[in-house]
């Protein structure tokens, strides 16, 4: 019986539960014993010229090793020059997940201008941490404030430009002008502008980096999702051969897309180590993290949906204005993905997308759990509900009519994606049945008839999501079976909570029969694993897991040859008994040879194989979430009382790990719908600068979740698996938002922007009753 699909507790846990993980700030390696502590001096203003920096007082403070400003950065290759006037960027480059550069280039330390509160301006190195804050307070920076633009409209108006040479705050405009012909042909058209609000990723471990330059080699420990990519980033920034750099990702305390590669603060820490010749280390505070780590989402979406009175959607448009913060770190990548997945799981004949990327005096935006796709799904799910309300049809029925039917796969969507496999209607029906939809609607009707203060809302979030969007980048694995029968897996993936060590061990055990306890999985050290991609985009199981499997199969082939020689049999007569983990001549158990014996016979290096799975394609998990909320119509307070989901990512390798990913995703998705929002005032000052004000969801605001099973394989990889990491978030946000609006739709409310805080819900109820029907 295969171990795959069974409930296996994690191999990572004994250590984490007894002595705790070793995150960057926990490292007690000898190389860092004398490390100086880095404290950043950051801009308190959203937009200003820097007219002077005086570090003299700071330099005299107790324990100060060095105070560094941009004037000290004289030992790095110069940045590339801006493009010539009129030069066209290569086609498609605007959608690459790379900084736009050119006029929009981002420095390491601010040069003569700061563009967001939190931008690093100077670095203080001290012997001890406590001294750092004291000394940083003594760094005196002269600022000449400039007008700040901190919201969509003031950014667009452009009275204040972040990059005067660019002539605009609009960094990119992509997509054709809207053509209304398809909508004019519809019986029913609904149009609305909605907000997908700015969020902060808030991994429980903030950003942290330690670095040492010794004997011509740069060693960097960094809380990252991608050690190998970080190494290439460092090589480019320093003008070094990657071979002269070692990057280590120790335990990482969550990332959610905001720790991809190495960011400017990490590069600065590495630079400070090389510049001063001393080991250095840095771990940001939460206040720093809330302005210094990239934010997510921040789209304004102009939606238009049209169709027939009997529920068929014929046309859908989503024009996105992406606030990218002060520097376009991801070009147009995020709204590009929003456009790619714009039509969601629906078969819509005409789909129109376009986007603009806007800079504002706020923290730069980058990937955050779902990176562009939650935005697409939240938009189309709101549009479908608005359409359903307009035609007076049950939103579940509208979905059923328009979901891509099973016989249309592979399906080319109007957004430009090709969905591999799906059972969208079955997923919807399964959730409706599992939730008891009809009884929920009946209870809702009863409460409405009685005029109860506590009204019930039922919301749906049907979705399809793209995982391993960069499948062509592949993932690596090296499998070694040692002469004592144990095995080591070197994986290019980089788990930060996902449990890859357990899952890869399960895959290896399944192929080779080596006991789980005898399998070690290693990741995140470029000295040991020079090539790999790391973990984001929900790619690791399908690409990294397949690589492990392929390397295991290669080892098995080698082993068969060695065992055949040992047993003086032909390979065709040999079999691997995975139950016992031994090689034997078929039908002759007495002939068995253990993995230890075979590996020892193979030579002093044992058996080893490398795999790089790059033939993969993206895969498209899907599902439907159903949220049930109770809204106190007198106060606007919302309580999420049930959340039922189908999240189909193909065959489940580890039910434990898959459920955990779904749970965590649901919580973050519900949090966006109900609580979280990064708020700036008109001058670009953060209003939600601590965890008192940025409302992370707690256990007290959530119910236990009801997860239903569904497994529709893909042909994109030999395991048949899709990614599960972001599906929960993508489905949950619209389900909860739609539920809240549904709870008060009988009072005339048509839409409430997220987060649906009590104040917002109450305001919507008030406005609807003041203006009468609809709003």
């Amino acid at each position, binding site marked *: 019986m295969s171990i795959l699909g069974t409930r296996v*507790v*994690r191999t*990572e*846990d*004994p250590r*984490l*539960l*007894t*002595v*705790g*993980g*070793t*995150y960057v*700030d*926990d490292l*007690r390696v000898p190389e860092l014993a004398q490390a100086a502590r880095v404290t950043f001096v950051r801009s308190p203003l959203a937009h200003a010229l820097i007219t002077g920096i005086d570090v003299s007082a700071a330099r005299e403070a107790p324990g100060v090793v060095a105070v560094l400003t941009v004037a000290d950065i004289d030992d790095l290759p110069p940045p590339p020059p801006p493009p010539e006037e009129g030069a066209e960027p290569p086609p498609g480059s605007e959608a690459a997940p790379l900084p736009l550069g050119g006029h929009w280039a981002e420095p390491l330390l601010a040069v003569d201008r700061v563009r967001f509160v939190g931008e690093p301006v100077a670095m203080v190195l001290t012997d001890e*941490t*406590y001294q750092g804050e004291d000394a940083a307070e003594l760094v005196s920076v002269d600022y000449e404030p400039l007008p700040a633009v901190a919201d969509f409209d003031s950014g667009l108006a452009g009275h204040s430009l972040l990059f005067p040479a660019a002539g605009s705050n609009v960094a990119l405009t992509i997509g054709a002008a809207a053509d209304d012909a398809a909508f004019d042909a519809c019986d029913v058209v609904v149009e609305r502008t909605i907000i997908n609000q700015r969020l902060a990723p*808030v*991994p*429980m*471990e903030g950003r942290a980096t330690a670095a040492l330059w010794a004997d011509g080699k740069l060693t960097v420990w960094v809380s990252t999702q991608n050690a190998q990519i970080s190494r290439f980033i460092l090589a480019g920034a320093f003008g070094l051969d990657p071979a002269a750099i070692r990057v280590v990702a120790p*335990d*990482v*305390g*969550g990332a*959610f897309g905001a720790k991809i590669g190495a960011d400017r603060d990490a590069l600065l820490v590495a630079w400070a180590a090389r510049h001063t010749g001393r080991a250095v280390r840095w771990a940001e*505070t*939460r*206040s720093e993290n809330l302005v210094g780590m990239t934010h997510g989402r921040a789209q304004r979406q102009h939606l238009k949906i049209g169709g027939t009175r009997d529920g068929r959607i014929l046309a859908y448009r989503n024009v996105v204005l992406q606030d990218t913060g002060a520097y376009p770190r991801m070009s147009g990548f995020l709204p590009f993905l929003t456009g790619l997945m714009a039509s969601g799981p629906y078969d819509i004949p005409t789909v129109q997308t376009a986007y603009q990327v806007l800079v504002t005096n706020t923290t730069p935006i980058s990937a955050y759990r779902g990176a562009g796709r939650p935005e697409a799904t939240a938009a189309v799910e709101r549009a479908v509900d608005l359409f359903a309300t307009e035609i007076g049809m049950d939103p579940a029925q509208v979905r059923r009519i328009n979901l891509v039917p099973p016989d249309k796969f592979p399906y080319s969507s109007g957004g430009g994606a090709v969905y591999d496999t799906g059972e969208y209607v079955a997923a919807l029906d399964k959730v409706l049945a599992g939730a008891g939809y009809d009884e929920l609607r009946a209870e809702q009707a009863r409460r409405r008839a009685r005029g109860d203060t506590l009204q019930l809302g039922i919301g749906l979030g049907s979705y399809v999501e793209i995982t391993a969007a960069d499948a062509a980048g592949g993932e690596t694995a090296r499998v070694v079976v040692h002469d004592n029968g144990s095995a080591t897996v070197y994986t290019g993936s980089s788990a*930060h*909570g*996902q*449990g890859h060590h357990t899952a890869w061990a399960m895959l290896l055990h399944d192929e080779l029969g080596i006991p789980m306890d005898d399998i070690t999985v290693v990741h995140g050290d470029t000295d040991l694993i020079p090539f790999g991609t790391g973990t984001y985009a929900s790619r690791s199981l399908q690409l990294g897991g397949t690589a492990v499997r392929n390397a295991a199969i290669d080892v098995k082939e080698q082993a068969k040859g060695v065992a055949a020689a040992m047993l003086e049999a032909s390979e065709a007569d040999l079999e691997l008994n995975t139950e016992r983990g031994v090689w034997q001549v078929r039908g002759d158990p007495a002939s068995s040879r253990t993995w230890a014996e075979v590996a020892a016979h193979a030579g002093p290096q044992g058996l080893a194989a490398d795999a790089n799975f790059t033939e993969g394609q993206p895969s498209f998990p899907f599902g439907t979430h159903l949220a049930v909320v109770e809204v106190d119509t007198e106060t606007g307070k919302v309580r999420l009382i049930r959340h039922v989901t189908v999240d189909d990512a193909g065959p489940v390798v580890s039910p*434990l*790990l898959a*459920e*955990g990913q*779904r*749970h*965590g*995703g*649901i*919580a*973050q998705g519900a949090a966006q719908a109900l609580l979280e929002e990064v708020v700036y005032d008109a001058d670009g000052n953060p209003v939600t600068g*601590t*965890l*008192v004000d940025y409302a*992370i969801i*707690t*256990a*007290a605001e*959530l119910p*236990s*979740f009801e997860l239903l099973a569904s497994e529709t394989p893909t042909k994109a990889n030999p395991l048949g698996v899709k990614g599960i990491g972001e599906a*929960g978030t993508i489905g949950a946000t619209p389900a909860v938002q739609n539920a809240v609006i549904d709870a008060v739709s009988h009072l005339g409310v048509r839409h409430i922007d997220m987060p649906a805080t009590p104040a917002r819900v109450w305001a919507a109820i008030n406005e609807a009753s003041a203006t009468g029907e609809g709003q």
Partner: protein
Amino acid sequence: MKVTMTVNGSQVDAEVPDRTLLVHFLRDQAGLSATNVGCDTSSCGACTVLLDGRSVKSCTLLAAQADGRSVVTLEGLANGDGELHPVQRAFRAEHGLQCGFCTPGMVMATVSLLEENPAPTEEEVRTALEGNLCRCTGYHNIVRAVLAAAGERQAS
């Protein structure tokens, strides 16, 4: 100033600046790095330890306030023979951790919660953990772990 406290059963003394926070005393002087700092406004609970048997946020206490008192961190939970505490066992069995950063604080908060309320309802568990943030698990399995540990405690 000189601060002395019992940490996980052993005495730790050190000469530290008066403003030293208990969490840094534990990490740097006692050399116990499981307890983590997750915020600067006493919001997240990652720094939770037991002080004289009760859960506290060690980032919001001076080491001086714990002088002469007894602290237990995650590292001190397993018994002398290395046998895991029921709460540690339950967190593993129920997959109540992913990245592990919130886990030491979450486990210590759970130990304290079960001392004060040995048979909590799900709602009581969720409310009792309101001061412990987790970004990975969605709390579903953490709640299951707490209830499982409570069940095991009741049975024994």
